[in-house]
């Protein structure tokens, strides 16, 4: 038998694709990663021989996982009602992180806001204290023009192409604009409804 007290943590640099978001974002990424007890960061995607592990730990990991659970439910409600659901509606659906009862104490307390604009919507968990990690879930319906409409994956998905991104910012107090990286936010993952996720797990 053996005891493992703590896993070894290493930081790997972001990929060139993320670096394209700007040098400022890259610096912010390193700072945030350190503050969040970075584990490993592998941008090589799902085909990697050694799958990447989450960059987060503790309550931040729980919130990140919860946001990913909420993505399909939000798109489902959007499809059924024609509108991006309000935060209160997501809480009534008992969806974490919008329903506090589905979160451990440490993960509660962020102020969840929605900003909808046509084909896209932001759901942000903001931190009024400036001490915690703020989260942004950015959802959008994208044009399917240019996609092979006869492919099995497309045939199974009537309607627009769906995309989701999760961003974080230590101490984020306000919703970011169109370019979160320019405001110091760090992208954890980009999910494409047609092709699956890119970025770290």
């Amino acid at each position: 038998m053996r005891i493992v007290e703590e896993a070894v943590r290493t930081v790997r640099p972001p990929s060139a694709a993320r670096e394209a978001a700007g040098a400022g974002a890259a610096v912010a990424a390193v700072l945030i990663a350190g503050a969040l007890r970075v584990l490993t960061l592998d941008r090589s995607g799902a085909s990697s021989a050694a799958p990447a592990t989450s960059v987060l730990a503790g309550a931040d990991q729980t919130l990140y996982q919860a946001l990913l659970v909420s993505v399909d439910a939000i798109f489902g409600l959007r499809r059924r009602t024609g509108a991006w659901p309000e935060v209160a509606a997501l809480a009534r659906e008992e969806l974490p992180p919008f329903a506090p009862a589905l979160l451990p104490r440490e993960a509660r307390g962020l102020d969840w806001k929605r900003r909808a604009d046509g084909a896209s919507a932001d759901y942000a968990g903001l931190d009024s204290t400036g001490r915690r990690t703020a989260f942004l879930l950015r959802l959008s319906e994208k044009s399917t023009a240019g996609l092979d409409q006869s492919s099995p994956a497309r045939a199974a998905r009537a309607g627009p192409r769906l995309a989701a991104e999760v961003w974080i910012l230590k101490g984020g107090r306000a919703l970011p604009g169109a370019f979160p990286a320019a405001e110091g936010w760090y992208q954890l993952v980009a999910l494409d409804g047609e092709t699956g996720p890119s970025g770290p797990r």
Partner: protein
Amino acid sequence: MTKMRWLASLFAAAALASFSAAGSQAHPLRIGVTLNPYYSWVANVGGSAVTVVPVVPSGADPHSYQPRPEDLAALTSLDAVVMNGLGHDAFLEPMLEAAGKSDLRRLDLNRGVPLLPGASSGANSHSFLSVLAASQQVQTLAKELASLDPQDARLFEENARAYTKRLRHLLAEALARLEGLDLSAVRIATVHDGYAYLFSDLGLTVRAVVQPRHGLEPSARQLADTIERIRAARVNVLFTEMALDHRTVEAIERETGCRLFRLTHMAGGDDTADRFERDTKANLEAIVAGVTAAAGRR
């Protein structure tokens, strides 16, 4: 691999006898599963539109599983197979190769899941033990099944929605019972790193992982070493596995003063639609009981 080639030759005869309709895409879909939780997920999401086919025979432990010719034959009838892809079902790829089904569609449910690190190296493959990670994987499963059977896409989506809601209710119940406890002095250890995902759902930190080789009882020397390390880590609650011998449990409790509670790894045993919910409920109840006991013993 030598054994796998030998099995492949045996399989050829078995396949001819057993599966004249091999590779059929006929409705309902035939979906293979490598682990017990995946059986429950596919059964609940797929409903009447899917036939679930365990790749590992019911009752076998995937950690020590050795394929038989009839197991390879069963692969030929599948439309797709749900896989872990993180090492928990490493037996699958050699089986597919031996069965001539290397091109079978794999449904990798861990794709997109924020994985935790394993105790030694790489990613922790036990994401299926977490309610939240399981919910994400069930939703991925619904989309994958929809791409195989677009006609039933709405059924899969609705089933996944109802199923994940039931799973979340289990989590909410456990969280409510932890509410109000002072967890500041609770120091948790597990015998296996796989439970980290479930503890994360509950906002609990695992301080130490005491990890014997899965399914094996520790030797006297290993047990003594474990006891010493539990003392050093000042752990006051240890979550062990169902299979651990009661004499080992009693020795650890006696020597360390640390209470032991049992969790299930969900590996091996029967494949049923409700098993994942039952096992998850049992795991959550054990964790709540253990943490409550540790919090009250400060």
